């Protein structure tokens, strides 16, 4: 039984037996893993607030041969969402990040790019409005998972979309020009495509001057969520809750 140590982000916890917690973690070293935190519900001495969702921790765990579940030995808090105010929109945004990571990442596959993306977006969610960091996270998750289609040309005729209107559909694999759009397609505005291109070439911190409300990125987020939900073949619980937040 080897003791391993890694930087990690806590994604979810589930009650297990009388006082244990089953914890899903996204570790830098081994990707997504699941482990049991013994007596974590009963005694806070060993884990404290380290098992709160979206807490960045340094985790020590034992891998048991032939068993999928790790045994969590200790968790040291590196950054906690509880260190700053958690209002309702921020709580939903944090849960959305956790749900996307949990649903999209395969078990035991390290992905440093996604790990760095998650840390950068979580840092931005501590500082500012939720919509821009969330849009950035959804865009980059779509790209890093390999699902992002070309945003500059029509998937049907191959013509460049520069300047012209672009449309997307839940069952289409990319953007379409006005001539090729399907029935019940939604429009992706030129400004949104421009913002997406900027986001693909700059870190999330560089948008700190830009304060966005919900509406300007709504079409972009709808597009990415449609792509992601189609690939995981289920509706994201938190996507529905984000829709109900009005600003």
């Amino acid at each position, binding site marked *: 039984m080897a003791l391993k140590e890694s930087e990690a982000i806590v994604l979810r916890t589930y009650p297990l037996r009388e006082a244990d917690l089953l914890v899903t973690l996204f570790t830098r070293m081994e990707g997504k893993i699941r482990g049991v935190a013994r007596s974590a519900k009963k005694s806070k001495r060993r884990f404290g607030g380290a098992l709160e969702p979206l807490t960045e921790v340094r985790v020590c765990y034992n891998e048991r041969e032939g068993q999928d579940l790790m045994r969590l030995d200790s968790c040291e808090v590196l950054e906690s969402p509880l260190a700053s*105010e958690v209002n309702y929109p921020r*709580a939903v945004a944090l849960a959305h990040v956790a749900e996307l990571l949990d649903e999209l990442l395969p078990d035991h596959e390290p992905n440093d790019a996604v790990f760095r993306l998650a840390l950068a977006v979580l840092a931005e969610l501590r500082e500012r409005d939720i919509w821009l960091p969330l849009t950035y996270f959804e865009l980059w998750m779509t790209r890093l998972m390999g699902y992002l289609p070309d945003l500059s040309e029509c998937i049907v005729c191959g013509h460049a979309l520069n300047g012209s209107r672009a449309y997307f559909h839940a069952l289409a694999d990319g953007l379409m020009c006005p001539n090729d759009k399907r029935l019940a397609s939604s429009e992706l505005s030129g400004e949104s495509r421009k913002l997406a291109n900027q986001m693909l070439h700059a870190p999330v911190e560089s948008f700190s001057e830009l304060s966005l409300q919900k509406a300007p990125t709504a079409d972009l987020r709808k597009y990415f969520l449609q792509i992601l939900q189609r690939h995981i073949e289920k509706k994201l619980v938190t996507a529905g*809750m984000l829709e109900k937040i009005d600003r």
Partner: protein
Amino acid sequence: MSKFAEPMARLIDELKKLPGIGSKNAQRLAFHILRSSDEDAEALAGAVRDVKANLRLCSICNNITDGDPCSYCSSPTRNQRLVCVVEEPTNIAAIEKTRHFNGAYHVLHGCISPLHGIGPEQLRIANLMRRVQDGQVDEVILATNPTVEGEATATYLSGQLRRAGLKVTRIAMGIPVGSDIEYTDEVTMLKAMEGRREI
């Protein structure tokens, strides 16, 4: 073929549905019930029936009660203008143990939990707002858990309650009595420092 006679297998299946009870424990409990006297078994069955038949939620505070309003809401000796908001009815017992709180309660029956699809509209907030708007309350103490979800619930409620212009307070967070500062994690220590008071 089942290992046990049908009534026994049924009892084991029902007991297995209880939280924290696995197959072995369910078997042990089922055999204990089988070996106990008829009176004891009947008393257990009666207690289960009674809980389902006679308990309901208090129309004022949502606490579980056998009479409406509950004993806390109908007590003339308690300060009904001071309301402590908790997540679950079991939290009331923890506060009552202090013997220092003499106000009334309001039970939300949960907290905001986006990962489970629970938003403010799924919680029992409407009758708290009615109590506040009717001018029956001077101060609301938010005693939700010190977790991300509990904090989100408290922040949401404070926003709603402050609009009604009353005093809203949050229970303190920090180092547990009898523990050691050396072993306190950084978030708990931060909250303890933020919530320090003059002595």
